[in-house]
Every structure is written in C-alpha cells, then in structure tokens.
C-alpha cells in the first residue's frame, strides 16, 4: 500500500517485526497505513483551522468575523475530535487485534468498504459545513436541534458513523476467529484493551445512528418535530462516547508504547484487565455528565449517572494511572535501568519522541484532563463549568494533550515499524512532543482559568465586545494573551509532527530494527525471566507520583467547591 514501505512479506503474506516480535500480515498492515495516514490528513486540516479559531478568540488579533468563526470552529472540531480520532482508532483496532494476535485481518473487504464510507462521510460533513448558508447554521460539534444545519451535514455524519461501524466489524471477526481457534487462550493485554475499546466504540456509534438518523429525518421534514432533550441524551452517547473511544485507545497505546520503547511490564494482569471491564460497564453512562445543568432529567437520574456510574469509570482511570507508570518502573528496575526513587523515570529515553510523547500524554492527561473531568461531572460543580471556556479547556487537555500526544507517539512508531522508515528531521522529532505538549498544556490552563474564574463563555467570538452593552470580559484579557501565544506555539508543535511524518515517508532512510529507546530488544521482550516476579519489584516511585496526583486532585476539588459556595443561593 502506497509503495512507501521498506518491508517484504513471506509467501503467506506475513513478516516478523524485528522490534516487537509480532507477526504482521499484509492485509492488516495495509489497512493500518490507509487509516493512519487519513487520520494524519484530518489532523492537518483541523490544525489549519485551529489557527483561525485561536486567533479569533485571542481578540487582540480577532481574525474572523462572528459568522465565519462558527464555520471555522465547526470544521476544526469535526476534523480533530472526530475524523483524526476515529480513523486513528480503527487503525489501533487493527494493530490491537490482528497485529498482536499474529493473524490476518478477517473480512478485509469490509475494512475497505468502511473506509470508503467514512471518507465519504467526512468529506460530506466538511463540505456541508463550509457551504453553510441561511437558513442553516454551522453545526459546531453538537448540532443541537432545533437549531438547523443543512441536511447534507446530518447525512454526512450518519454515513461516517455507519462507515465506522462497518470498519470495526473486521476487528470483531478477527477476535471471533481467534477465540474459535484458541478457546482457552487469554488475550494479550493490548488485544484485551483493544477489545474493550471496540465494545465502547460500538455503543457510541449506535448512539450516533440514533442521533443523526432522526435528525436527518427531522431536517428533511419527514419527522415534524424532534425533542431537544431526547436529542441531547442521544447525542451525548456518541458525543462523549466517541471521546471514550479515544480514552481507551489511548490507554491501550500507553501500555503498548511504554512496553516497546521503555521496557514496561504489566504490573498486574488482573488489576489492569479489571479496570478495562469497569470501563465497559460504566463509562458510557458517565457521559450523562453533559446533562448536569439541564432541565428535564431528574436529580436522581443525574446523581445516579455521575456517582455510581461515573465513579466506576473514574476508579478504572485511577487504576491505570498507577498501573502504567508502575509497569514502567518495575520493568526498568528489573533491567537495571534506574535506582533510587525516580531513577527509572529520569533514565528513560527522553530523546525518543515515542517515549516522551507517551509520558507527557500520561502526565498531562491525568493532571489537566482527568481531574477537571471528574470535577465538572459533579452535579453542582457543573454549574460553574457548564458551557464556559473551561469546558473546551478540559477536552483539549484530554484530547489534545492526552490522546493526540499519545497518537503522535504511536505515529512515530508506525513510521518506523509499519513503514520501516527512520525518522527524517531527527532533531525536530526529538523536541516536537515537548513543544506541542508544553504549549498546549499552558493553553488549556488559560482556557480553564478564563472559564471558571471569569465565566467566559465558549463558542463566542467577541467576549471583549458584546454588542449593545458596556459589559465585557475585559478582566480576562491577560489570560487570553497567554492563551493566544500558547495556542500558536502548540499549533506549530502539531504542524511539526505532520512535517516529520511526511518527510519520513518520502525521504526517510530504511529503519534498521532495534534497539529502540534505550533497550536491547532481547531483554525487553522477555529474553530472560531470571528476575523476581513483577509484583515484587518496588513501585515506590510510582506511589509517590500518584500521591502527588491525589493531593492535586483533592486540592483542586476543594477550591472548586469553595468557589461554588460563594455563589448566591440556587435551588431549594
């Protein structure tokens, strides 16, 4: 596929990866390339539109007119939150299933059909948004009825979602065949994580059909009305569910890359797998936290979904937050890669962008994205976050610093291990994760400050100048100045990833195989099991790090409740 690979396959279509030891079949690898590169294309499109969005919200520049702003924001959102993510996630399913299990991709024609539908849907959505004209409105991400968008938009979204369901089927079929042939075998953890991801993806995508199907019928005036509260509940099954796919795919990638590049082992199979099962049961119900400040849904319904359900998923995330660094710590200690409290971490291959992107992703996701998500998921605190700029702050912390950075880390290894090419522009590749992650981290913190401390609304092009009133959010201007600079630097950082990826594809030397990171692969892949069991390795460094995380979590939660308690009386 694409003729850019340096690898050859044997007569059965397999090749053995010299770094991971995986047997990879061409049928799966071709599709990983196709979906992966399409994802990077969507990343590039969304990134270009990010420039316009950031420079409009930074009102010192104020680039776009209000009408254009909503159009550009919609294209930015759909390409980065949906197309970049979902194309990449299908690729991750094909890695987590066929690659890890050493199998052919089952039903390859469905993978191609799904791709064609997803691409057609994505192009239709982009075109429909770009060509929005009266009486239609830019859909943004949510396209809340009854605000009308063009019927072509709903159709494109529906086709994309159906395409993604079709594209997931070859993964399920591969798993089915594996279990038929090896009924008593346990799936490797990465395959198990991919399987959990696929279940959550399926639920989310069915939500998408229930959202865009009725919305299309309503827009075509086949359905006379569509209840706004019904739409919101169906919409958030896919609206947040799609981001839960990101979460699980990202965590699966964390396990994968920390092992391949850093030499991590699994701290406890039982604990990590239980955490994935908790996600399957609870995380989609947790999406109800979008309706915390809504009428219609009862207090009991909201409490149930943000307590019993959401905390089942929060517990799972906290488990992974320990298990992944602990696996890295135990694995590196066992290989003599670090003594003391944090030697295993400092000694890591920080000049390897796969490693640095992954570690930064874990830290930034946890501290910035995870904590804020739990806080705004509490019913009462939600009032101070709902629809403020702090909400995009939160999901840029999860999606832009967390998932995107993790997928970039994976992308670096797709270039090496799938396309067989050594990174071009090596020095740029080394600094890219730090530049992108650092700047994006600053940007999202500014968005959260502006949102929670000043109540600056999201989806608003001119908060410094509200027509018809003297009132404005001028007090937040200093935060927007840092936001603007941070956003531009992070866009440059993101663009450098695309540049390195394209340069590598077209000019990269042949990748010679291991060692990667700072490991000799024979050791990393378990050449010797002469050391003590993983659970007997010290995890004290990880324990200290997670206690710092916990203290931050408690302090930030207390501060937010304090802010809430200062508001006037609301409710009975």
């Amino acid at each position, binding site marked *: 596929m694409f003729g850019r690979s340096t690898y050859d396959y044997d007569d059965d279509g397999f090749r053995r990866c010299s770094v991971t030891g995986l047997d990879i079949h061409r049928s799966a690898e071709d599709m990983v390339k196709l979906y992966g590169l399409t994802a990077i294309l969507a990343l590039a499109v969304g990134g270009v539109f990010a420039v316009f969005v950031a420079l409009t919200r930074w009102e010192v520049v104020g680039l776009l007119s209000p009408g254009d702003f909503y159009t550009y924001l919609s294209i930015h959102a759909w390409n980065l939150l949906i197309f970049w993510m979902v194309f990449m996630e299908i690729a991750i399913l094909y890695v987590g299933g066929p690659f890890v299990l050493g199998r052919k991709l089952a039903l390859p024609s469905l993978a191609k059909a799904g791709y064609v539908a997803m691409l057609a849907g994505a192009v239709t959505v982009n075109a429909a948004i770009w060509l929005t004209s009266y009486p239609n409105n830019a859909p943004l991400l949510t396209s*809340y009825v009854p605000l009308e968008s063009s019927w072509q938009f709903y159709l494109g979204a529906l086709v994309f979602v159906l395409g993604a369901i079709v594209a997931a089927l070859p993964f399920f079929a591969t798993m089915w065949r594996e279990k038929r042939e090896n009924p008593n075998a346990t799936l490797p953890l990465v395959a198990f994580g991919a399987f959990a991801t696929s279940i959550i993806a399926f639920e989310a995508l069915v939500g998408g059909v229930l959202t865009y199907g009725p919305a299309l019928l309503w827009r075509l005036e086949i359905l006379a009305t569509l209840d706004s509260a019904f739409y919101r509940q169906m919409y958030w099954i896919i609206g947040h569910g799609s981001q839960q796919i990101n979460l699980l795919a990202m965590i699966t990638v964390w396990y994968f890359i920390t092992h391949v590049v850093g030499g991590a082992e699994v701290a406890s*199979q039982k604990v990590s797998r239980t955490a994935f099962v908790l996600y399957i049961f609870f995380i989609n119900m947790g999406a109800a936290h979008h309706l915390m400040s809504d009428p219609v849904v009862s207090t009991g319904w909201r409490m149930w979904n943000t307590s019993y359900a959401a905390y089942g998923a929060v*517990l799972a995330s906290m488990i992974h937050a320990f298990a992944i660094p602990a696996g890295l710590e135990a694995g590196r200690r066992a290989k003599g890669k670090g003594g003391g409290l944090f030697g295993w971490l400092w000694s890591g291959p920080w000049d390897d962008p796969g490693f640095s992107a992954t570690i930064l992703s874990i830290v930034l996701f946890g501290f910035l994205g995870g904590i804020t998500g739990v806080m705004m998921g509490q019913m009462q605190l939600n009032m101070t976050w*709902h629809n403020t700029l702090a909400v995009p702050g939160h999901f840029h912390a999860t999606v832009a610093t967390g998932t995107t950075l993790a997928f970039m880390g994976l992308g670096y290894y797709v270039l090496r291990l799938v396309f067989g090419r050594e990174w071009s522009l090596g020095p740029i590749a080394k600094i890219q994760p730090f530049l992108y992650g650092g700047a994006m981290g600053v940007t999202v913190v500014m968005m959260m400050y502006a949102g929670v401390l000043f109540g600056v609304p999201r989806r608003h092009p001119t*908060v410094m100048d509200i027509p018809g009133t003297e009132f404005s959010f001028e007090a937040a201007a200093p935060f927007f100045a840092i936001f603007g600079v941070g956003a531009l630097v992070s866009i440059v950082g993101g663009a450098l990833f695309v540049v390195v990826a394209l340069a590598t594809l077209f000019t990269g030397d042949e990748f010679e195989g291991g060692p990667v990171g700072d490991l000799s692969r024979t050791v990393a892949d378990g050449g010797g099991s002469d050391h003590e069991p993983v659970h007997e390795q010290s995890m004290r460094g990880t324990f200290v790090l997670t206690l710092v995380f916990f203290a931050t979590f408690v302090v930030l939660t207390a501060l937010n409740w304090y802010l809430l308690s200062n508001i006037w009386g609301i409710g009975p």
Partner: protein
Amino acid sequence: MDSPLDEPEGNWWDEAVNRRETLWIALSAGWALSLFGWMIGWTEFGDQNNVGQTYSITPDEFQTKVADFKDRAEDTERGLVPADEDVYVGALQWGWDGLPVVLEAGETYRFHLGSYDVQHGFSVRNEENLSQQMSLQILPDYEWVVEMEFDEPSTYHVVCNEFCGNGHRSMHSTIHVEG
C-alpha cells in the same frame, strides 16, 4: 516477564498484587465514595443546587406566561420589578424576554426558564466579582423552575452561552439586585 503483547503465563488471576498498588486502589475507591457522598450531602446542606421542577410547555404558551409576567410587573428605568416571587425569562434569537429585572437582596425568587425557539444558555455573573457565575441550560418546549436568592446587592449580567445562531454573541441582559 509480563509483556502486554503476549498471552500471560500461568494462572495470572491469582498472581499477587503489589502492596502499593492495592493501597492505591483502596485510596481511589475511598475518594470516589467521598465525592459521591459530598454531592449527595450538598443537596441537603449546600446552598447551590441546580435542581428544580420541569414542565412541558409549547413556546407559544410560555411566551404568553412571560407576557403576563411583564404585565403584572412594575416597569422602572432599571427594569421590571416582579409583582411576586415569580420571574419569567424567555430566551429567544437573540435576546432575553422578561429581563432586565430589579430584585431584592435576600428574597427567594422562582426563575421560570424557557425558550421561544432553539436551545440557549442562561449564564449569570456578578459584575463585582466575575468568578461568582453559573450556567443553566434552556430547552425549547420545557419550562424549568429554579429558585434563586441573591444576597449581595449588585448588577448581575446575563449572557447566552449556548450557540444559538449568528447573533448568539449579542444576547445580553441584566438582573439588578438592590439592598
């Protein structure tokens, strides 16, 4: 060695778990229960709860109610002084019907929130202290009744923070609270 890429060896379910990992799970579970308990407790002991009865209503019916509210209220230079404790807010593209209002500090009012057209966001903040702010969603076909009691005399600014079309940014009004 326990690689995430290989089938785990032996009886992996019965493998011991590191003591610190067990401790962390207990701490996390305790924290989740605390957050849950706090949220429930706040509905009893806290003064800020986004809780109130919802009623089905057509936009036309709701508009009639808002008009009735305006008729009964006293019209002053700063806004409407409600005749009783009910305040009706009708959100529309692109303005706030029923606002501005003039309220008394320390009095409890029932805010009736509804929309004449699409979804809107009722986002209110104290002009003296912007971090005193909160948002409630407004949906067409529903009337949401939420009690509010402002204790500090000040001007509270209302903006829409749910995208509602090209004029979205111009939706602004005020609630004047007098001592």
